[in-house]
């Protein structure tokens, strides 16, 4: 019965994951110090847990900021808002799927929940696909900055791949050094 397309639910999930990992890592530090270790030693002993905690905290910050930013876009058209909302939702859902173990560990989600979330992301793919090219166009990277024949704005990839090949310095001469060396073999 959980609605994983609800922004508040997702925000809460990420918050709980970050809280859980930070409290866990912090608890490990405390336990080491209770055992007589100094703070530096305790931090080092718990460093693997600390890294996971920092990732969860940063990830939560990015997700929360995405949701918050969209909630403040008051003058944006409804059509665009829907598209951006899909992106934020997909980003959050995919993040849960990618890090499902951490959401499962603390009992934030069940196995069934994770399966449901994975299915939700798959079902969202066609909705994003229809706008995918327009969404990257909006970044407005010029062809000169992208420096990519494959990513050209006009999409004329194959003609320009062939032109690119013709610029190869090896093509300056028809007969290469190979032929000279071959003769010495």
């Amino acid at each position, binding site marked *: 019965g*959980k609605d994983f397309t609800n922004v508040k639910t997702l925000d*809460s*999930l990420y*918050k*709980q994951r*970050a*809280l859980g990992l*930070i*409290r866990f890592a*912090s608890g490990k*530090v405390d336990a080491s110090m209770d055992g007589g270790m100094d703070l530096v030693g305790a*931090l080092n002993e718990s460093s693997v847990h*600390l*890294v996971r*905690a*920092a*990732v969860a*905290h*940063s990830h939560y*910050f*990015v*997700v929360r*900021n*995405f949701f918050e*930013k969209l909630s403040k876009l008051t003058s944006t*058209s409804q059509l*665009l808002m829907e598209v951006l909302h899909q*992106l*934020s939702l*997909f*980003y959050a859902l*995919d993040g849960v799927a990618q890090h499902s173990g951490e959401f499962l560990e603390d009992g*934030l989600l069940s196995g069934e929940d994770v399966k449901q979330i994975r299915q939700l992301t*798959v079902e969202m*793919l*066609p909705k994003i*696909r*229809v*706008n*995918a*090219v*327009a*969404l*990257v*166009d909006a*970044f*407005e*990277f*010029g062809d*000169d900055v*992208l*420096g*990519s*024949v*494959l*990513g050209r704005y*006009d*999409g004329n*990839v194959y003609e320009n791949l062939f032109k690119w090949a013709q*610029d190869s310095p090896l093509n300056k001469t028809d007969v290469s050094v190979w032929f000279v060396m071959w003769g010495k073999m």
Partner: protein
Amino acid sequence: INPDLQKERDAATFDVEELSVLLHNGAHELEKKRKLEELVRNDPDYKSLPFDFLSREAQYEEGVRRSTIAVAKKDQLGSLIENHGDLITYNTHVGRGKAGPFNLHTGMFIPTLVKQGSPEQVAKWLPLSENYQIVGTYAQTEMGHGTFLRGLETTAHYDPHTQEFVLNSPTTTSIKWWPGALGKTSTHAVVLAQLYTLGKCHGIHAFVVQLRSLEDHKSLPGIMVGDIGPKFGYGANDNGFLKLSNHRIPRENMLMKYSKVAPDGSYSKPPKSTLTYGTMTFVRAMIVRGSAQAIAQGATIAIRYSAVRRQSEMRPGEPEPQVLSYPTQQYKLFPLLCAAYAFHFVQVKMIEAYSEVTELVNKGDFSRTQELHALSSGLKAYTSAISNTGLEVCRTSCGGHGYSCASGFPALYTNFTPSVTYEGENTVLLLQCARYLVKCTRDLRSGAKLPGSVAYLSCGCDPSSI
């Protein structure tokens, strides 16, 4: 326009122009960006073969050529340059998105002068820097020392008799290593060194050091500088080494906005020791921006190409579908497309936070510097790691052509990937962020109120409340 790509554009359900305006901070900014791009595109001085066809030396020369032309033409840009961001846009297009020889000059040398220098020092060096009469870089990292700044070995001993600092690289591992444009381009550097005065070490401080003669560009006595050789990428940049041997600089060359050394050698410490590292926080914030840009570029290439490329048959006898129509391809690329948007909005937030805290610091309020440091460390590490691995996913999603330099991915990847390790290796930065989080949990126990980005730690809710 390729018909498949046009079909995709025609099918979009929203107004691309509206989104472009949103992403570029308004119609006015977007218009300026377009005009600056057009200027570069139509300028015959900026026409040349792609960097991929040039040798390392030729890439450097081309980078220098483009950068110097850009400086010479800067005054012709008129009203198109309203702020520093406009200049970055122009330079990015001139350098085709590659790191150029002036990146550290504008990105670190000048900001450090402004943030760490006294008003007199800023008045002396800023005009010279802005007019490119001197070219600077930021020499912090040493061959044997990276993120751990307190471990830097370079020394600056104050001599009260001559009122000079004597700079030395006492060991091989202390040789400054990697700073952009240090090898052949820069005339000056901000050098970070352990300050010794009246027989006592006061830790890392920043010094303006002249490296090369302004007459003939030869390196000065006591200065040994050069290029560190071929790298993974950054071919247009002369990342360099610097060995200092009893090199003397005037007392006035220590940046003294916060900490000071008086003529007699007495030392006044800064109000906050971390202020010396302020430039790093700024650069980390900029790396978050770079991460957003890099993954957005990767997604742009891969998604456009996936719309053009047709592959296999869904069913025997049917035409080859666009690769973008396969759910597996979508499942590779759309998380990265979404990440590009998430990172765009978070880089805006990061820069805002940096500006807010800087304003507070300028008013003497240092209460949020730790939070900013932790936030910039965590976000720099998180976003750069995702973008770095994401670029490889984008590359492989382009199939065999992704391996060609024509795809743009080798350049994009090798130009972005250093940000995973510079200005703090990511694991080290995550640990710095985590230490702050641990401190916050301890502060909570003593009833402290936590600031914005970590306020949620005081949330008493439990999993069942979801």
